[in-house]
């Protein structure tokens, strides 16, 4: 039996679910086709930052887009709580980017100043080591200083995903697990999707939000998604009393007390494992600014693959040859979730393409 929907979203990660929820709550019949249990899912292995600081050093529009979403995040979190009953622990106390040396601090400060000149709503402070020690007492004596930005926050990414699923289903969205899309056939005025379990679906529009899977799906509807995996490894410690009231770019404490440590980047293809050398390096880089972590026990570690375009910027595009087919991919799907839900979804429903998305076409990669 073939089912018919207004819109089919391919991929149930953070990008797909944020868009699908945004579509379904606006009254559309939506289906999300998602991969198998062992699919690669950045949405389940990420660090949970809603981060603006330093983003878009070479593309102010990306900085603006990140800020736009971060500014919408509190409303998004409140709506998710109201609609799903799941509290996702979002808070935005501002974030610190700690520098180990004076030179590093100076270059970070200079980059922030450039961004601030281009977009005055990007706020930051440069803190020398003494001031940093006052503002963030957990930092030890060896940090040279830090950039503080009130734009940054963090959230539990797993609760966010769970809340999105619950809210999406509450507003009538349909979810198809184990439904890898293998083929998309544009028919007259709609799309027929062939799914790995043998079923087919028909939808008026299709949104490609399949993370690394977009690479092979996009060409079937005249789009391009030159995305590649970039592995990140993360360590989680035992729960400890709250000692860190702000997220930093690679150490943050969750509301439950665990400390997440991360931020490695390796080009290792589709291998999402962990390696002792990288984990040791991650631990060293955390203990240097936070010596009090030295004897805290690590309880878990994992690797996950980022979805990276060649320049690290997102792609949002409607197919020119097959109108109604959309592509959405980005490497900061937590940060951008609020914008995907309330800015990208209305565009897919037929609204004007938001001006903020101006630069994010795949033709920028044309050689």
């Amino acid at each position, binding site marked *: 039996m073939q089912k018919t929907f207004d819109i089919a979203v391919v991929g149930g990660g953070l990008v797909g679910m944020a868009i699908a929820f945004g579509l379904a709550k606006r009254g559309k019949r939506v289906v999300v086709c998602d991969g198998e249990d062992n699919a690669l899912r950045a949405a389940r292995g990420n660090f949970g930052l809603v981060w603006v600081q330093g983003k878009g050093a070479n593309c102010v529009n990306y900085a603006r887009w990140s800020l736009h979403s971060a500014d919408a995040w509190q409303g998004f979190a409140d709506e998710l709580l109201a609609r799903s009953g799941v509290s996702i622990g979002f808070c935005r106390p501002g974030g610190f980017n700690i520098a180990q040396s004076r030179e590093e601090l100076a270059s970070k400060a200079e980059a922030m100043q450039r961004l601030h000149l281009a977009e005055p709503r990007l706020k930051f402070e440069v803190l020398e080591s003494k001031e940093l020690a006052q503002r963030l*007492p957990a930092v030890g004596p060896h940090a040279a200083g830090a950039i503080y930005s009130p734009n940054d926050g963090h959230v539990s990414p797993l609760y966010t995903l769970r809340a999105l699923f619950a809210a999406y289903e509450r507003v009538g969205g349909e979810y198809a697990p184990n439904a890898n899309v293998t083929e998309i056939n544009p028919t007259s005025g709609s799309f027929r999707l062939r799914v790995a379990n043998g079923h087919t679906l028909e939808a008026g529009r299709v949104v490609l939000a399949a993370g690394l899977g977009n690479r092979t799906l996009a060409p079937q509807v005249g789009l391009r998604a030159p995305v590649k995996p970039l592995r990140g490894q993360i360590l989680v410690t*035992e729960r400890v*009393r709250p000692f860190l009231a702000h997220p930093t770019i690679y150490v943050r404490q969750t509301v*439950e*007390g665990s400390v997440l440590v991360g931020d490695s980047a390796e080009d290792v293809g589709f291998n999402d494992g962990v390696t002792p050398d990288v984990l040791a390096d991650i631990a060293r880089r955390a203990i240097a600014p936070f010596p*009090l*972590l030295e004897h805290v026990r690590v309880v878990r570690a994992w690797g996950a693959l980022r979805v990276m375009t060649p320049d690290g910027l997102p792609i949002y595009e409607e197919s020119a040859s097959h109108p109604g087919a959309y592509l959405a991919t980005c490497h900061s799907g937590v940060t951008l979730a609020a914008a995907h839900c309330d800015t990208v979804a209305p565009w897919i429903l037929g609204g004007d393409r938001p001006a903020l998305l101006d630069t994010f076409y795949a033709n920028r990669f044309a050689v």
Partner: protein
Amino acid sequence: MPTDLLFKTLPLAQQTTVRIYIDEQMHEVPGTLSVAAALLAAGHLACRTTPVGDNERAPFCMMGVCFDCLLEIDGVPNRQGCMTLVRDGMQVRRMQGARSIA
């Protein structure tokens, strides 16, 4: 609580005993037990309180999975009581919330 009555050490395990201290109180327990089992045998159900809600937790899975048996053992906080065997002279403390590092 009904679990008071449910926890029984089998006669098989009643061999040599060791002395451990639970919150400074001396207990003589079978030397083959895990710390979590020794706590239950001594009638201490809750071994910790949770970091966020301050709710009491007792050893639950007894096989290293749930982390509900966290205890301070010989001065080291957050050790899994079910994965640690008792030892003569061991100092066990129940944990109040998360460990402090500051």
